[in-house]
């Protein structure tokens, strides 16, 4: 035999590091993704430090200054003050923590439940699949915002309750995604190969199928972050969100509605913060999708 180890190779490829380098290059190529990453970076920064850095930390905790009500934007209050004289900038900065953590909580819980349901349904097939998917379809059929509102109203306001309420309407998307991916992966030749070897179903699921489903899940999570933040804000806007004095963007916006158009600044800051955060996550999610899930590239 001739030199078998050196037969045609597609391109000189060194190792995994190269793939990462290419991926980063491609990511950097897409200017929008980079902008998204920067925005998300800022948002995450405020998620962690927002409350600490707020110029009026007392007011974040609920302190009021009724002598300074409805002051227009100024050096002391870049986004003005609200109906209780609280600094809008401080509330919005601190609100980042609430909104982003709630969004993340929703996505995380939704992912865990959905992945579990979808993986079991897709892998078990038959009766289990049928039952789980009917439940999923059913949950998808109920308008999610109304479902979340009803559950939130039932549980009462509060951060945790809100996250639970939205999560309970959030998982079916993941269940469908994961089931679809599992079904597709199940048909992959390497899975057939594993079955031919005699690998156990457990091994096939955890070693061969799930690792290959991770990318689309991560992509969906990153794309969903924005929507989760929007839903959280929507619930707050309706008035069934967090409990005071917790500052939350949707609630802040909802309160400021009554003061339009005269005290418009009370609405602008939370609204823009919401928009920018979601915008950042969506840009980043788009970039990640192009990177991790080329199949779904748009």
């Amino acid at each position: 035999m001739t030199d078998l180890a050196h037969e045609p190779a597609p391109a000189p490829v060194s190792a995994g590091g190269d793939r990462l380098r290419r991926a980063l290059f491609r990511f950097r190529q897409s200017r929008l993704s980079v902008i998204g990453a920067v925005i998300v970076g800022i948002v995450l920064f405020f998620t962690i430090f927002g409350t600490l850095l707020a110029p009026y930390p007392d007011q974040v905790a609920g302190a009021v200054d009724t002598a300074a009500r409805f002051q227009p934007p100024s050096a002391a209050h870049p986004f003005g003050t609200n109906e209780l004289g609280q600094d809008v900038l401080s509330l919005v900065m601190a609100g980042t923590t609430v909104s982003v953590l709630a969004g993340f909580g929703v996505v995380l819980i939704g992912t865990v439940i959905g992945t579990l349901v979808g993986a079991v349904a897709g892998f078990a097939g038959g009766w289990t699949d049928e039952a789980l998917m009917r439940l999923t379809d059913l949950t998808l059929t109920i308008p999610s915002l109304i479902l979340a509102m009803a559950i939130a109203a039932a549980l009462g306001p509060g951060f945790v309750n809100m996250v639970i309420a939205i999560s309970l309407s959030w998982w079916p998307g993941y269940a469908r995604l994961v089931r679809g991916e599992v079904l597709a992966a199940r048909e992959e030749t390497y899975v057939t190969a594993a079955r031919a070897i005699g690998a156990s179903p457990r091994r096939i699921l955890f070693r061969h199928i799930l690792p290959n489903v991770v990318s689309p899940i991560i992509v969906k999570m990153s794309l969903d972050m924005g929507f989760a933040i929007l839903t959280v804000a929507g619930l707050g806007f309706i008035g069934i969100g967090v409990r005071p004095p917790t500052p939350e963007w949707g609630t802040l916006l909802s309160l400021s509605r009554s003061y339009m158009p005269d005290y418009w600044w009370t609405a602008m800051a939370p609204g823009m913060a919401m928009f920018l955060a979601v915008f950042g996550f969506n840009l980043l999610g788009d970039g990640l999708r192009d990177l991790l899930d080329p199949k779904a590239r748009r």
Partner: protein
Amino acid sequence: MPEPILVIDNVSKVYPGRRGMFGRSAEVQALKGVSISVDRGESFGLVGESGSGKTTLTRSILHLEQPTSGRILFEGRDLATLSGAELRRLRARVQIVFQDPYASLNPRMTVQDIVTEPMVVHQDVLGLNGRQRTERAAELLSLVGLGPQHLRRFPHEFSGGQRQRICIARALASGPELLLLDEPTSALDVSVQAQVLNLLCDLQDRLGLTYFFISHDLAVVRYLCSRVALIYRGELVEEGETAQIFDAPETEYAQMLIGAMPEVAVPSAGRPSTPMT
């Protein structure tokens, strides 16, 4: 006369119609009473065009699918009657190499993980510890013309031919008797195909394997196999010694098929005359 290692006895397979969005499709008869006997140590070729039932038969031999009727015997034992544990042991002795080397390797596993997986799965039979498995994986890789330096790499870093070698190494890892080769070279370029075919010949000589070779490429089958069966629309139409079938096909279908083979030789009769002006 050696005993047959694999006997396919009057196997039929019917797929029920599937309920689609706009109604039910008709049922499909994929195999109709196919009987084949493969002797130990031989290369048996199964030739058929698309939709002939080759794949269904392969999957049935691997017990990935159950035939509607008929029996499949490995070393005289009916697969359908085997217990789960016996079946698992059987899997160590019958292995397969798939057509598409790009799809048949898990992209998230290293070559080492891939090649040692059968040893892990059949730990109870093979009884190898971690270090032994790695050593054996390295041996297998060099057996198929790769080296231990490739153990830590991922499938995407290899070319098609190299991947097919990895697939062969994996198939050999559990020490099988019978290797099902499901069009192992049809996705490869001619020059690479030649290398893989040579490797297969070499391995059979060295390890005394039995090949069940499935292909639509008559030239490759002729080259590799001692006996051939032709399958058409789920039915076996002709079976016999390779040379005999290729030289004097009996059935019309076989004649047509062999006649249609594009040989790399200028057809003497139809040699084109000088261009018309």
